[in-house]
């Protein structure tokens, strides 16, 4: 180690930190200050449309984690499947979104919300009543559904939020 730069390099570094002292912090104060997530966010829940679902179970087949369980019975009068049980174990779900992508009838949506922590694993298991689109409790996200995405608020972007300059720069 030789100080062949006479501490000039250290001095340059010190100016950078000093500049940051007068810049705006990048962080946001989370629970009070909420940023809009992406319109396509794959939140940790699924929203299921009872009307559109035909019970084909493509979602369950494609799920890499095997988190989706679907049981159907046949309704011979109307000639269709009746979904008796539609249950997703979000403890196993990795939010890959493949089920939403493959659904041929557009009956499955990723959820827009992301705060779904529970105290017990058993509380993470959701059945079709919890995930129903009609109940209005859950907002579907625009993942693979551009028409839903268009209605959601615009994502807060750090590139737009941050100005890298101190007040006088």
């Amino acid at each position: 180690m030789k100080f062949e730069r006479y501490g000039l390099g250290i001095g340059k570094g010190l100016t950078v930190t000093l500049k940051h002292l007068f810049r705006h912090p990048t962080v946001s104060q989370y629970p009070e200050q909420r940023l809009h997530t992406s319109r396509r966010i794959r939140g940790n829940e699924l929203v299921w449309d009872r009307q559109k679902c035909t019970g084909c179970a493509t979602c369950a087949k494609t799920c890499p984690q095997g988190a989706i369980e679907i049981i159907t019975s046949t309704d011979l009068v109307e000639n269709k499947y009746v979904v008796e049980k539609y249950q997703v174990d979000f403890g196993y779900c990795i939010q890959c979104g493949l089920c939403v992508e493959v659904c041929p009838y557009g009956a499955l949506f990723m959820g827009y919300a992301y705060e779904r922590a529970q105290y017990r694993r058993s509380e993470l298991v959701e059945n079709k009543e919890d995930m129903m689109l009609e109940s209005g409790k859950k907002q579907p996200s625009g993942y693979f559904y551009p028409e839903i995405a268009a209605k959601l608020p615009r994502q807060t972007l750090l590139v737009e939020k941050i100005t890298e300059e101190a007040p006088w720069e």
Partner: protein
Amino acid sequence: MAIANSGLINLGNPQTLPPDWPGGFWWHWVLFTIVIIAVVIVMVMAFIYMARRQIGRMQSRVGPNRTGPFGLIQPIADVLKVLLKEGIEPANVDKPVYWLAPIVALVPVFVIFAVVPFTDGGMLADLNIGILYVVAISSISTVGIFMAGWGSSNKFSLISAMRVVAAVVSYEIPVVLSIAGVLLLVGSLSMNDIVLAQQDTPFILLQPLGFIIFFIAGLAEISRSPFDLLEADSEIVAGFHTEYSGIKFALFYLVEYGEAFLLSCLITTLYLGGWRGPALPEWLWFIVKAVLVWFVMVWLWATLPRVRIDQLMALAWKFLLPLALINLLITALQVLALPEGSLWIMIPINFALTAVLILVWSKLFKLGWGRVEV
């Protein structure tokens, strides 16, 4: 130039106690001891808060801002939290050493504050050997830290303890030599006299090289960044206090920041003119200067990477020690040669000499030796 004061108590009138104070001065000692300890603890909290906010902003974060207005109560919350925590004692510790270590480390730090002049004579004891006392006592903390490292029976702690002993033993010398430069100018060892002697010019102007050496060596001695090898968290986890928790950890934390406050106070006293300053009250000037020194220390902390142990040692022995000796020699010559009252001539000369010496030493001397064949 200086008036040597002696006497244990020196408040206001240096010679005698006020006659109407009943019962001797023992109660008075106890009272002021408590006051000084309280001041130190409050300042340590303020320093912790300041460091966290400042580093937060420098890292484009916010820092603690939830507890109380602007997060001002955060240090108190931290203290409460750490006091209420379980004190975990590992199975294989060397019990007496492990338990004594925080106390051995803490006591010297507080004891030193007895001689720090917060105002003109506003100190617990204006020892006529003040600065010598500081130098002597300040090294004892290291024993406590070494005890912690040894007693924890943790290898990371042991490495940390060995590093800190090596660093303190080496850096004690440049520290003392640079203080000696100041003492030549003052002619007294009393801390209050040192401040009194800076009536016209603070010693940072007369002793720029001494100041730089004292600052660097002081940082190394109290193991602040960039010399924080003691608790190099990326290398040796938390160093000597890896195995400490609860109140024992809190004591080490207090030592760490208490030492930082102490170094700020010493730099203020020795080089920045202590409590001297216009308009504001004396104690406020002292605090402002100490906080300013701390600001610079935190600023360095937020910016610089850490040096390696061999570079740390080489910096002490190859860089600071010769420069401190040269500084002492120059100061001695100047004090002898220059007539009384013409010390201002020293200012340009010393600044020029400082620049030249640092350039020469930077160019010529290699620090650290890199790879070792094993």
